[in-house]
């Protein structure tokens, strides 16, 4: 793990991009999890809800862009593209970008909606999302992936788009159950370590709640000496989660 020089001492700054449009399927829960864990470890938390036209907090360390319906993604796209430089500067300086579902798709070159419209993406990653072919179904359901860095990852996926990574990009994990990025090549998500920053994309909703080790990792990048207090109940519930459900 790369440790980011943290000038913010004992505070973590989290920005939630477009919570009004891009927070389908409880994606805001990822913020809740980060904030809860940070507070438990004695770190102060500042959460910014950043809407269309508002300036992103220049101190933002973790930036979340969640999923939205097709028309929501169209609503935010021009505002998002205006932020391209701002966002890439932040990531270049060490911030983490967490994109879930639609927020993951928008990290690539382009994204195609269900009715075939092409939406330009941030182009941070050389990947593309295309629409499902007529005979292909939406990818819906509980999913599991195996990640070299995080071990077993679980989540709930619901997407029509198919994302394809070029060979030079590493997926977050390998699909064990479910559809993942495209229902074909068994890849799930993306994990790209830059010189300083980090880009993490996934189709898994409920991501940090179900995979607390990832939340710990994201916080530890900024607070390496952080002793994460054991969330005994949580972690054991996650065990039950893994054992009992039809995953």
């Amino acid at each position: 793990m790369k440790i980011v020089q943290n000038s913010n001492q004992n505070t973590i700054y989290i920005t939630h991009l477009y919570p009004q449009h891009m927070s389908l399927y409880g994606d805001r829960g990822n913020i809740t999890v980060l904030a809860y864990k940070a507070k438990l470890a004695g770190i102060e938390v500042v959460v910014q809800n950043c809407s269309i036209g508002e300036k992103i907090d220049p101190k933002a360390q973790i930036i979340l862009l969640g999923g939205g319906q097709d028309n929501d993604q169209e609503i935010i796209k021009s505002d998002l593209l205006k932020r391209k430089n701002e966002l890439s500067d932040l990531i270049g300086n060490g911030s983490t970008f967490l994109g879930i579902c639609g927020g993951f798709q928008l990290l690539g070159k382009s994204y195609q909606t269900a009715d075939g419209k092409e939406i330009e993406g941030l182009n941070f990653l050389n990947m593309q999302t295309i629409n499902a072919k007529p005979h292909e179904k939406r990818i819906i359901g509980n999913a599991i992936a195996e990640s070299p860095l995080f071990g077993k990852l679980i989540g709930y996926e619901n997407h029509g788009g198919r994302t394809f990574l070029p060979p030079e990009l590493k997926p977050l994990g390998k699909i064990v159950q479910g559809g993942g990025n495209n229902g074909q090549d068994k890849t799930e998500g993306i994990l790209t370590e830059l010189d300083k920053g980090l880009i993490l994309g996934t189709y898994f909703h409920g991501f940090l709640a179900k995979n607390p080790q990832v939340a710990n990792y994201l916080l530890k990048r900024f607070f390496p000496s952080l002793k994460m207090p054991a969330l005994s109940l949580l972690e054991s519930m996650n065990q039950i989660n893994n054992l009992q459900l039809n995953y």
Partner: protein
Amino acid sequence: MDFVNKLAIWSAQLVFLILSKQSTSAPGLVATKIAPNLLTDILNSFSKPPILITGTNGKSTSTGFLANIFQSAGQEFTHNRSGANLKSGLLTAILKEKNLNNLEQAVLEVDEAVLHSLTSHRKAKLILVNNFFRDQLDRFGEMDKTISLVQKGLNLEPDGVLIANADDPNVCKLKASKIIYFGLSPQVWAGKNNPEIHAAELGHCPICATDLTYKAQWLGQFGDFYCSSCNYQKPKTDITITKLHLQVELSEVEVHFQDTNQKLNLKIPLAGLFNVYNALGAIASAYMVGFSLEQIKAGIENYQPLFGRSQIVNYRNKKLKIFLIKNPIGASEVLRLINLDSRAKVLILINDNYADSRDICWLWDSHFEYLKDKSPIYISGSRASDMSIRLTYAGLDKINYFRKIKTALNAFSDENNDQEHNLYILPTYTALLELTKLLKLEKK
């Protein structure tokens, strides 16, 4: 009626005999296999066109209120009281009627995706649309699609009417040749803004997609909204709540009827603002059908709740209050109600079977933080583990987890004395069915 239809009806009756009179879908399913047009043929045989209720939340309760008004006024009609609202469920409910030949009209709660397949064969006299919230997105894909499905299904008789919730910007997008709007007078909510509304629930203009501005907002995206860019706004209401007094077990309201400038004071025998909307939709519909204010008042005030919809049941000498939860807005409203009750103890049952929605991410959009001082919370169901994670992050440190719903129910009722506590159970749909069996209660 032709031979195929008769054969289908006989088969359905046979299925009723084999299974039980309580079947809610199977007989209709069998009959449809034999005579695919049976449902629409029966609807066409009624002398009056149907009255249909659709939307995301509260369909069953609204339909229940409306049917009770019909009943109190002595009408001959059929009604799917089981809440099964897909085609097979509608047909089953109708075939269950003993006096099918004497019926004049159907009052049906209809799934959003089914509406069109009914009204394309028999136009409706009246369609009530309650609201469009996020619910079961895994089934419908995305909400905009649900709204256009309903729009497509708005086939009304020439003198037919759409009864629409004026406070929901999603519903106001619907078009019809005649629309009667119902809603809350903004004055009623003055000074009571709901601070817990999540950003994701804020509405945006369904016409031009700009973020909506609210002079006041009270329940999810419901409120006194307008769009600063295209002037889309809350329409003038025809039937309006002008006074509102929410209490723990019921609500007192004053309803104003614009066309005749009459006022009606009545008690809604269910708790919570969402039930005020459910009742108001039924009141507006009944008024447009032509019932008198006295008939409407009687039908609302003597209404017996459906099982699991704000119902109070007795179990081992304890009073249990049962609220079905299935999506963020509905759940948050129930939680807000419980938050007001300092003596509340809570059992939450979360399943993820198909009828519940396989997706339980909605737990994260529901405001479980309202339960902060209600520890310990009792939980069970196939997704109790997700519930427990959600509650932990909501700041609750003590959670009593039970693998089986039965053990959870017994521990919950044994460990809490209802002289000191008010016992609330919050199940998802299939957990409610299991609970029903455990409580040995017949569905009404």
